[in-house]
């Protein structure tokens, strides 16, 4: 009797688990979320930790291990899928064209990064300055550009008696906040070059966002920088520099 019950229990378990295995082993998604990979096995642990290592393990998974051909290497198994890759190129520093600080002049320049990720959910990229304000020379500085409202300014516009330093992202992955409708930012789907300006901050500002992988070619993320001294402002002479950090994160 007991044996029969045990057999029934196992069968019931198989009946329940096997269809789940088939169903859950496929990537699933809703309108909002996507499970990139999954497995149904008999045991395992998400994270086991020691002072130096963390371990995620699964027991009873079939078809795991490495195999290769002349062109490909395959790492089979659930845990192999839990890694995503992102790379960010390292462009050179940007030297803006020097300006005169007495009669209202401006200088613009761009830096481009190549971002590659195989993450199906995409990536986001932010920019932040190391100092506040960003562009300084000793005690002299350009103010961080301040848009008139919450959204970036469509045109770079400063008071004639001030100077300012700002940025404008460009590229296919520009964050919605920097997209425009031809006259205003954070609205529409356009991306006009040298429009939609914001100022740097020591807190990260999201400049790019992509919700899909872009391997193997990647995306070019360009940021345009502009420093302007107003016509009624005298910007002290000097060598100004703005150390900045950009960070690309898989989603």
């Amino acid at each position, binding site marked *: 009797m007991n044996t029969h019950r045990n057999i029934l229990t196992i069968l019931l378990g198989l009946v329940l*688990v096997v269809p789940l295995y088939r169903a859950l082993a496929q990537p699933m998604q809703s309108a909002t979320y996507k499970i990139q990979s999954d497995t*149904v096995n008999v045991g395992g642990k998400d994270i086991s930790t020691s002072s130096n290592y963390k371990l995620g393990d699964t027991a009873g998974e079939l078809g795991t291990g490495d195999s290769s051909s002349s062109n490909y290497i395959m790492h089979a198994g659930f845990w192999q899928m839990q890694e995503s890759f*992102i*790379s960010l190129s390292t462009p050179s520093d*940007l030297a803006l064209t*020097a300006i005169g600080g*007495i*009669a209202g002049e401006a200088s613009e320049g761009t830096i481009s990064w190549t971002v590659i990720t195989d993450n199906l959910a995409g990536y986001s990229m932010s920019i932040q300055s190391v100092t506040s304000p960003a562009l300084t020379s000793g005690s002299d500085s350009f103010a961080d550009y301040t848009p008139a409202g919450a959204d970036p300014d469509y045109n770079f516009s400063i008071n004639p008696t001030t100077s300012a330093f700002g940025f404008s992202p460009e590229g296919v992955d520009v964050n919605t906040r920097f997209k425009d409708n031809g006259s205003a930012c954070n609205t529409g789907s356009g991306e006009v070059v040298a429009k939609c300006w914001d100022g740097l901050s020591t807190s990260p500002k999201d400049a790019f966002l992509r919700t899909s992988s872009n391997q193997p070619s990647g995306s070019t993320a360009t940021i345009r920088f502009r420093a302007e001294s107003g016509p009624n402002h005298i910007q*002290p002479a000097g060598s100004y520099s703005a150390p900045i950090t950009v960070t*690309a994160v898989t989603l």
Partner: protein
Amino acid sequence: MKIKDNFQKKSIAILLLVVFYFLFNLNFLNAQSNSIQIDLGVDNCNNNGICEGGENSLSCPVDCPVVVPPIIPGTRQSGPPLITINNLKIEPNFTSAMVYWTSSVSTISTIRWGESSEVGEGALKSIIYAQNHKMEIINLRPGTMYYFTIESQDVGKRTHLTAPFYFFTKSYKDTTFPLNPRNVRTRADITGITITWENPPDPDFSYIRIMRHEDRFRGSPFLGKLIYEGDGTSFLDADVIPGKKYFYSLFARNNKGEFSSGVAVSQVAFSEKKLPTTPPPKDGTGTGVITEPVITTPEALPTFFVYQYNQIAQILSLGKIINIAGDKDTIIDTYTKTLPDDYLWVKNNQEEVVGTYLFSYNKDSGRYQAVIPPLQQAGEYTVKTYRYRDGNFTTIAEGILQVQAEILPKTVSKRQPTCLCCPMIYVLALIWLFLLLLFLKKTSKEAQK
């Protein structure tokens, strides 16, 4: 056995839970970052051969060489200085003013300023010889008129002192009077003198007060015989003596109790007796007989300034054309310790008097002012200011105002009440009422229960 079965069931359930937990708690983020630097050189000398604002002989000797006045052979060096001041530009703000100018030769300059032409309140001196000059005068009072002089000294130690210049600092509030009544006209017939006008398009407008005088105009709403107060647009003064000339001053009062500077109009009462036939002037003061004021030149003429709110002031002077905007009041302003009942006429191109306006003391600005309503038609307008003296009115200042066609307003009603949010207010009020009704209904149901 039951215990064992339950144990097995629980084991399976826990296993499933562990697997699901394992699946849905994976969170792997990967990030890459790098740091770069943006460099910018700023130079205060662009070496373009032009001595621009901010460049001077010290910071930019290539662009700004020290220009020494030429020495004419056969003349003494101590002759009259060859320094001239050009391109003077003033940018007043609320508590400061930027002054720009150029000098014909390189000079060290001293700027002195004050609220009177004695310019004794402050001084600022440059220390570098330059031809392009820029100085900022600070710690000024808002809404105040300031005078300043520029003293220049060249490398030969010769000096040049300008006459006082002037500017008004910007005012945080418009201290001009309330708007005057407009299109004031008079008509005399057997019933009396009828005065008609249009009330000012001012949301704060309260009523019109008319004061009557029998000798001349007076720029006070408290002097004379009060003959009318109300918000109508006409008044019949039946209490008149045929053939006698009457002087009316109309003032608009706002809800704060402030009166406008006043509009003047005069009229001779109708008489069946034959009066001396003097052609009525096109003076806008009615159809009655009025004589042109005697034009004489007083010994000490006051200086009248013309400006619009937060705009540069200019002196009203004969033959000088002053550009004004057609959508704003124009202030004719002077400083006086007495209130001499001045008034002014504004005539258009056809020599028709557009209006006659009284001068009143403005306690906010401490100055003596007449306010000309917006001159809506493009063109030139002649302004003549008169002062009552020894039984006569004498011309004390005149000039020309010019309204540019392109700056004419589409609508001219200043201070017209606008309510852009009104539809939104109604919608919000309706929503609020709807919610209130729901709340009351719910409350009453609960009470019934």
